[in-house]
């Protein structure tokens, strides 16, 4: 993704965040607690960002692992082992964010 399109996306997202309170007020029928509303929005964004970045990183790991296996098929077992460990460690970082999001969604730490 080129630098310019990345910058454009970032500006659009940031601009959209300024209009979020409008939607929050429309959708919030039962709750007036703005901290609770913001926590739900934050949880959604956090999960999206974490999943996207984790997928990018895992893609790079798989790419270099397959390249290494293609270059040296005899070491395929070792490479596959390292690949698996690396993938699971990256996956667990996204799982941490999932847990925080679940807490924000279901346990209402900031009220309802």
């Amino acid at each position, binding site marked *: 993704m080129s630098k310019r399109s990345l910058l454009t996306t970032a500006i659009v997202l940031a601009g959209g965040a300024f209009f979020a309170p409008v939607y929050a007020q429309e959708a919030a029928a039962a709750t007036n607690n703005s901290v609770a509303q913001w926590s739900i929005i934050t949880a959604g964004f956090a999960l999206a960002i974490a999943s996207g970045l984790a997928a990018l990183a895992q893609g790079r790991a798989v790419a270099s692992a397959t390249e290494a296996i293609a270059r040296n098929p005899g070491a395929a077992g070792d490479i596959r082992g390292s690949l698996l460990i690396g993938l699971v*460690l990256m996956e667990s970082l996204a*799982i941490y964010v999932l847990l925080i999001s679940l807490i924000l969604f279901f346990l209402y730490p900031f009220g309802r």
Partner: protein
Amino acid sequence: MAAEGSALDHPLLIVDAVNATLGPVVLKIGEAIGYEFQKPAAPIPNYMVMVGLITLIITAIGLFIRSRLSVEHPGRFQIVLEDGILAVKGLLEQWIGPKGPQFMPLVFTLGIFILMGNYMGLVPGLMAPTSSINVTLGCALTIWVYYHYQGLRAQGVGPYLMHFAAPPGVPLLLAPIMLPIELISHLSRVMSLSIRLFGNVFGEELVIAILFSIIPFLVPLPMMLLGLVTGGLQAFIFMLLSIIYLQGAVAVEHHHDEHGHDAPHGHAAPAAA
């Protein structure tokens, strides 16, 4: 996390039966030691019943296969079990060296326990005990205490504690910053082990439950297949990480004799968090 568990709690026949029979005994024990249960009607939580079930199944299988062990005419089940044990033994020898297989009992049992625990979530009438943070935290704390104990036993108290301040290859000058970093990274291993397993199994269950509430007919099947894959993978990864932590604790002593690197044979340990 109790409220998260109750989001997916549904009454299970086995749990109700066990609570009906053993519940009063547990209540009496609780009274004797002065512990108040949150739900006196069902003092045994559902994950404890599942853990007990896993223990009973493993014991039964072990006793059964032990009565039929044979060298000349091994049965099919014995061959499968021997394959599994040899695979874990190979993993231990590959990572830790010739002293590896002495750690096999706990590591292999943990792997089998977590594997069965993950797969019990897909059986109707049972729940996955590893979908509760209590069980996964128990597994993580067990392996944490175990590898520290093995490290203390292998290297002695003094040298083992010195390795926190000055890991091999790091000059003593950096000890003041290495010590907090090492302490935090060791403590974070407990959190990462338990939360990785819990998050994977519980998240999988949550997705399947949500899909069931939307379209119960055929749509949850691919997610359950994914549950099979991630269940096996998470059990293998828990076992592999235990082996890596054991290597970090036990195998460092050889580096004085060899060429100054961490591992005596095979792989160098990655800085697994």
